[in-house]
């Protein structure tokens, strides 16, 4: 019951996400007597049961923090049985399918259940997710997860190849989502499953899939076709120092501006590896460590022929730096309405 409602305290059986540091989140199911090993020391489940979610727990070598799962956090830790959808696409799917409590939504395939959790959250408590998966093991695993997460009442997980066997739904779905290799094969059954005014979405990595899907959608009377792509560009917050070049001026270097550094928010102390905010002097310096350590902040330089000691200043600022490498494509989302 750790997904369906907001809970203050952990209970036995809860799926708990342990925050163990930046980019290090693990899931566990609370069972009396069990022990979970983290890099900060052993953690007894009994220690957590009855304790509040979101409160730091001291281990012998550091702290961890138990979090109540949300669909977004679950997406980060779930066991991958297939490639999964992430929150950027999931958010758009839920939003553009116009889901709300009470909606009946259909999903094929279930995959690893990453999207399913967000779909269920949107239609709870009086709506329903019908999710289909042609791979029997995967379907069973997903069904088990939904039960464990306290979501069993809101979802029907079936093992079926919907391309061949259809959805067996008659104009009762408000929305339908397809993440299949050949979504166009399902459009006929999809058009039967949707109520008038229903929405459909397909996710496909390749443009050819989108092209065939769009044709099939038009052939079946779907309108308001929209094909889109959404990519998230995450930023890392950094304190940057760019040293001023010495022009050999006799006086201290004067520049247009002395950037004031944020006093209220000094760079975080790097006590832990999970420090998400990093202080970077010269980014390329980090890859040039073989050159001997030069200090770019305080440097003795020769000035105008006379070796005089002066403090070389730097332009300092805080920035949200874009990533060197990011997700460049996940898939195209195709949306349409059936009136």
């Amino acid at each position, binding site marked *: 019951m750790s997904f369906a409602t907001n809970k203050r305290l952990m209970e036995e059986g809860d799926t708990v996400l342990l925050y163990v540091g930046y980019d290090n989140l693990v899931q566990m199911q609370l069972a009396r007597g069990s022990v979970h090993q983290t890099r900060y020391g052993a953690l007894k489940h009994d220690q957590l049961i009855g304790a509040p979610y979101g409160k730091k727990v001291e281990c012998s070598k550091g702290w961890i923090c138990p979090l109540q799962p*949300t669909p977004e956090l679950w997406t980060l830790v779930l066991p991958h049985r297939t490639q999964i959808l992430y929150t950027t696409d999931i958010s758009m799917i839920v939003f553009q399918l*116009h889901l709300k409590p009470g909606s009946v939504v259909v999903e094929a395939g279930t995959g690893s259940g990453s999207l399913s959790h*967000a779909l269920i959250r*949107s239609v709870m408590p009086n709506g329903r997710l019908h999710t289909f998966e042609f791979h029997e093991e995967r379907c069973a695993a997903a069904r088990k997860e939904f039960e464990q997460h306290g979501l069993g009442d809101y979802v029907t997980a079936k093992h079926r190849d919907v391309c061949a066997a259809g959805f067996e739904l008659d104009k009762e779905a408000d929305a339908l989502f397809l993440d299949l290799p050949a979504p166009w094969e399902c459009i006929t059954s999809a058009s039967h499953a949707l109520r008038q005014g229903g929405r459909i979405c397909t996710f496909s990595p390749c443009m050819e899939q989108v092209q065939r899907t769009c044709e099939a959608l038009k052939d079946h009377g779907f309108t308001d076709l929209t*094909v*889109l792509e959404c*990519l998230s560009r995450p930023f890392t917050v950094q304190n940057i120092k760019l040293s001023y070049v010495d022009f050999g001026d006799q006086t201290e270097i004067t520049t247009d501006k002395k950037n004031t550094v944020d006093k209220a928010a000094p760079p975080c102390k790097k006590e832990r590896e999970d420090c998400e905010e990093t202080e970077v002097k010269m980014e390329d310096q980090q890859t040039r460590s073989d050159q001997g350590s030069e200090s770019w902040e305080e440097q003795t330089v020769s000035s105008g022929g006379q070796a005089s000691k002066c403090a070389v200043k730097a332009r300092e600022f805080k920035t*949200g730096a874009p990533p060197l490498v990011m997700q460049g494509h996940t898939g195209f989302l195709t949306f349409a309405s059936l009136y």
Partner: protein
Amino acid sequence: MEDHNAISSGDHVVFKTDDKTKVFQVIANRTIFIEKSKLRGADLMGQKYGTQFELQHGKLVVVVPHNSSATASNTLAASGKDNRSLVASGDNQKLTQDDILKMKEEGISGQDIVGKLVEQSETFKTKTEFSQQKYIKKKKKKHMVVFRLLRPNSGLLLDTFNHSPGKICNLRADSLSQLLSYSNVMSGSRVAVVESCQGLVLGSVMEKMAGDGRVLHLYPGNDMNRHMVNSFNFLESQSKILLEFPLNKLASLENGTFLDADQPETDHTDPTTQQKQHNSSQPTQAAVAGGDDDSGGNNKDMEGDDGAEDKDKEEAGAMKDGSARKGNKRHADQSKNGRADQDAKRQERQERVKEAATILMEKSLDSLIIATRHDPVSLLQRLLPCVGPSRPVVVFCQHKEPLVECYSVVKESGRGVQMKLAESWYRHYQVLPSRTHALMSMSGTGGYLLSFTHITS
């Protein structure tokens, strides 16, 4: 749920063409201006949601499905392979403007007019197929008004701002959708929202809760525009979860003087008063928050002061008035604004504020959402303590710099994990046989989003 698919009086209805989305309220004896045509509210009532209409000579005609582009497509028979022999550009159209006007007056449908234009264009057949399609599309847009009337929802209402994103802090579909995900809003949540998005964020949050839970609208003392909440057609049961609390009372709430006091001054900072002054043409007075204007008692807190549609004022004026003058459904069942009624409403509002205050003091909000044109840093610092542990916080801002600051502040406080500061890139595609490509024009910014999970020591 009788004929739940028919438009009824008081409904807010979304008007949607291929490239335009508007929302207006349908009231029997009101005139609605659509694309230079007048329609009577009564004409729309009883129509099915989702039906496609064409405006023909100012009249509403139902479009028979699967027929809309047949005529035009059939004329695509002959087309030049390329445009090497095309000397002069332009249309070389034999029909004059007068001819077209005459046809319109004769009640000839837009569809037919476009067909005639194609026939009478000297250069049409020498154009490439691509140029022919483009030509037809252009002419259709000019001479045909084909649209659907749809039931409003968060996505469609957001679309009404497509051409004026500045009004909602550049909040784009991708950002709003992520804001709703990361905040984990669901039925039963207790959510606090600070927003300057005309109520669109509030409404979107309420839509996800279906009457179960609480939405606390925390508004700056002088800024409570949430007229878009109206447009969601919420039932009374769905609306009642919306509470409000004026942020200029936060200090007194924190130091315990607010809940203890009898709150006589709550009335003075009544958002409705603000709203009214805001709309008045007395800017100096408007700047004085919590003035002694007693006339603020009548409930106008849902009154839109600037609708999505005001860019097309000449055509949308009536719609806007229609939606603004009419109260929301929450009060639709209440008759005239008598004195007793006013008192009841004031009482109701005081109770909402008090309940909001109580929830805030419990410091266990299920989510905090900030999407405002005010400084988000100080808001976040001040409101974070009201959020429960293990609960998500989402801050949206049209600028990146304040969120970098928010990030640092939270990081330093040690009260956030799973912090993510991101912007998203959002592109639409044209998928047509042999002509698949991203649209030539795209949005350059949808704002920035900071999300994290609140934790405590």
